[in-house]
């Protein structure tokens, strides 16, 4: 589960968003959408904890995984400075993935960097003949990366400042379009800030859609030992790194 991988690319998509590409050996377990890797950014005493990142894509033929990240602190800043051919140590693939089956008609709702696991989910669903509806919300037009990767007829975009797509928070845009989705979809998959996930759950519950959410959370060990990353569920605290990051939204004890 611990790997020293070669960086095959670390490309800026705009000043704050990057796409990291890593070569993985054939023994690397094929990851499933929703799973994450726990990256060792640097050495102690500067970096004492790894940073978790959802897997953005997995190309089994090329043996590559991709990680989409935004610079939010000194860890991601340091990651953005890593160069092609450098080695990077990570643990993974870790965590519990999303669930779907042939009867699932999905809507994927992502906020900001929360689009990462949903992009992977989209790719894997398409392989099984499922064409998901997608709604992604960003702060502004500059952040709206990867929109060309989704079928335009099933893709909705929103920005908080209205500089691209529809203006407003992604949850408000979803509420506005609910009449369109009624009778079409039966499950929402979402990743983003906790407040956003809570609103998505409320909408899903009202419309009787199933709902799975993936939490973004700073972690300790990432492998279930330290219990540093937890979310309150109806059965008590559960570990985001182990029982999550994907949870059935009905299980969460939202505050």
């Amino acid at each position, binding site marked *: 589960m611990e790997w020293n991988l070669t960086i095959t690319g670390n490309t800026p998509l705009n000043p704050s968003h990057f796409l990291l590409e890593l070569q993985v050996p054939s023994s690397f377990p094929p990851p499933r959408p929703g799973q994450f890797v726990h990256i060792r950014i640097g050495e102690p005493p500067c970096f*004492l*904890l790894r940073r978790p990142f959802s897997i953005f894509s997995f190309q089994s033929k090329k043996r590559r995984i991709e990680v989409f990240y935004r610079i939010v602190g000194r860890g991601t800043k340091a990651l953005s400075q890593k160069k092609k051919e450098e080695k990077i140590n990570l643990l993974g693939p870790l965590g519990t993935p999303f669930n779907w089956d042939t009867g699932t008609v999905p809507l994927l709702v992502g906020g900001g960097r929360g689009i990462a696991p949903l992009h992977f989910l989209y790719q894997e669903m398409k392989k099984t003949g499922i064409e998901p509806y997608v709604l992604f919300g960003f702060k502004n037009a500059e952040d709206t990366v990867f929109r060309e990767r989704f079928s335009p007829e099933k893709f909705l975009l929103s920005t908080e400042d209205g500089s691209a797509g529809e203006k407003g928070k992604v949850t408000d845009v979803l509420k506005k379009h609910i009449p369109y989705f009624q009778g079409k979809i039966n499950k929402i998959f979402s990743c983003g800030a906790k407040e956003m996930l809570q609103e998505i759950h409320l909408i899903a519950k009202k419309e009787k859609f199933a709902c799975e959410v993936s939490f973004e959370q700073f972690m300790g060990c990432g492998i*279930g030992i330290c219990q540093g990353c937890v979310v309150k569920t109806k059965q008590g605290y559960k570990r985001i790194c182990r029982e999550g990051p994907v949870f059935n939204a009905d299980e969460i004890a939202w505050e």
Partner: protein
Amino acid sequence: MGINLSVNFLGKKLTTPVILASGVSGYSDELIPFLDPNSVGAITTKTITLQPREGNPPPRIIEVPGGIINSIGLANMGVAAFIKEKLASLLKLPMKKIVSIGGAKEEEFPLLARMLSEFRGIDFLELNLSCPNLKKQKLFAQEPETCLKIIKNTKRVSPFPLIAKLSPQVTDIKEVALACEEGGADALNLINSLPVLCYYAAGKKLRGGLSGPPLKPLSLRLIEETRKVTSLPLIGTGGIYAGKDIIDYFLAGANCVSLGSVLLLEPSAPARIAKELKEILASSGYDSLSCFSSSTGL
């Protein structure tokens, strides 16, 4: 040259002086896939309490410059579930087994020891007298008389040697160490994490225990002071990230060391650290750790 890292600890042979600290080894099952068992002398469980504890609300762990602050709050399944679900697989491990126990009240320590007493595959009990993340105003480890009483009462019912885990937040560590010795402690573990507070976002604070590199000089000093007044075996804990850190602990008077925060970053660290320790000994012309017998007094 074959280097022998084994140490004698309370009459038992540890393959290496490297102990895995409580809290970063879980109940052992999640960590085992990452470990080279030959590099680990002993493993310490999470602190087990009488009743299950769900632990503190998140956030529970934060990285600060140079260190880590955690506030897990002794989240654990409680002793009954531990015995039923986790103990059997723990006892199959090749390294020595330390079960950490914690009481909300003084009288819970002997109760816990009694409940575990029939499981003779346990090698040692560690009494967590110093968790910084409970609502109690004072830690047990800050009251020498309380330490003495807890250890004495636990000793009466425990078939296992007792290790007392102490806090760095005391006026005089020597006084606490001597009280533990008088109570019947067989060994001391210095130190638990240091109670601290940080603001991780505007107006949002985390009170927790500081661990990682900043703890090492603090722990070394407390070990050196403690070594002056007692010949009990000492486990040195705090900021060990490399083989050379272990040498410093031995020089200060520790007999064994325990790894904490490093396991969060590098779960396979014990093998690397044991290898580094061997290399240091080899480069100095030694083939075992007996060269430190003068500093440890044993």
